[in-house]
């Protein structure tokens, strides 16, 4: 069987494409498949899905949001919509409003519980306390000790305020 695209070489790759509910079968040689392959990857990816989710819960006019740029790396929200990726670690703070509902949607949670790196710019002691409190709260909820959970929640909020929202 010869390649459907170049018609010259032997077809060794067999692709099934679904476009507008139409199933198309393609028989391609290695070179043409490679070209076709990169083209196909670009058709649809994770970034398209993320872009769809990313405007959820946005309270500001989308056009104005899209133009906002990260002062550290110059990445705009528009860029995020296009690529589904962020520009640098600082972007998280800049696009916090848009990212919070998105992260919740992806992970079912928008709070990190887990490892803390050895070196961080902020005061590690507060961070560690905060983590311990969060873990304690999770445990209390699991054990159905709701009064304890509420007490811990208030303490967490207090500490988070102190960290000016970064925490």
């Amino acid at each position, binding site marked *: 069987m010869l390649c459907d695209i170049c018609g010259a070489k032997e077809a060794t790759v067999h692709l099934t494409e679904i476009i507008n509910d139409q199933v198309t079968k393609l028989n391609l040689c290695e070179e043409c498949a490679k070209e076709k392959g990169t083209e196909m990857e670009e058709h649809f990816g994770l970034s398209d899905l993320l872009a769809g989710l990313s405007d959820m819960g946005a309270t500001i006019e989308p056009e104005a949001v899209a133009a906002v740029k990260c002062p550290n790396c110059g990445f705009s929200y528009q860029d995020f919509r296009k690529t589904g990726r962020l520009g640098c670690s600082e972007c998280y703070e800049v696009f916090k409003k848009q990212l919070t509902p998105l992260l919740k949607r992806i992970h079912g949670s928008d*709070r990190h519980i887990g*490892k803390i790196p050895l070196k961080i710019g902020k005061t590690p002691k507060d961070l560690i306390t905060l983590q311990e409190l969060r873990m304690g709260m999770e445990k209390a909820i699991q054990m159905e000790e709701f009064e304890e959970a509420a007490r811990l929640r208030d303490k967490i909020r207090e500490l988070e305020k102190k960290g000016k929202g970064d925490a």
Partner: protein
Amino acid sequence: MKLDDLLQQDSEWVKGTGPNSNIVMSSRTRLARNLDKFPFSNWANKKQLAEILAIVEGAVRSTNFLKNSLLLKIKDLSEVDRLFLVERHLMSLDHTKNPEYKALVIDPKEVVSVMINEEDHLRIQVLQSGFNLMEAWRIIDEIDTELSKHLTYGYSARWGYLTACPTNTGTALRGSVMLHLPALVFTGQTGKVLQATAKLGLNVRGLYGEGTEASGNFFQVSNQASMGRPEVDIIDNIERIINQIISREETTQKALLGKNKEAVVDRVWRAYGTLKSAHIITSNETIALLSTIRLGVDLGIVKNLDKMLVNELLILTQPAHLQKLEGKLLSANERDVKRADLIREKLK
């Protein structure tokens, strides 16, 4: 140590040792890390990329774990060598693209690898043979801690480790296991089992081929969410679910031997016969047949064949490995012939 030395050794996932290695081929953990304030690799300019590479390289060289490792600049590698590393599960296919300023660190045993300047500045990976996910976590945790003595990571107390893609934020941990589920596929139960798995927050994909039409009955299962629970909980959750899939596969294998013994035995020996006599064979057909033989070995149908040889053939028959063994570039048709030669030789 040189890249070509790898060809002479069995990578971790080929060994076929470790707990439940009849069904779980390998366990893998991956952590994504980024340097604080530096643009992520896809957004950084050349100067920044070079700087990131130099900083990470310096950190790697200062750790006990990785000081004897092989550091490869992707741009210096041939196309075949790059694919060879992908086939060995040491790096992603994405890492072969735009190779300037990208590097790969591999420890001599192929247990640890670090991709530098992939989507994130660091992608640390630990591979273990068999069902050993918690051990893979323990090792990666230790390496990450050691590296972090020399690096300041992008991190927020609220969101944890900050990654290029929000789907990895938080712990930035992905735990995955490679499963071989021939009996579930044979009896048409995979759809049901894997659907249930997906509902419990795990991703399932075919290892070779696309979606659930995985060729050769190999599946990769990993956690979807990386934020909201501690690392150990994420790993524990995967282990619990995988344990159930394992026992389902085992029960089905036993049932197959009871009810459909002739059909299974027939299939296994036909697969063996084809592999022993074929003179032209594609990669996909090879994977499917080797998978059937692997089941035959596990069920005691094929007696004088080492499972490790089956695993070894799974990797050696892939395109880049064949070309490395031959020492030259081969067209797809030439590979199909060489592949058949190699299999006949090994199964003699």
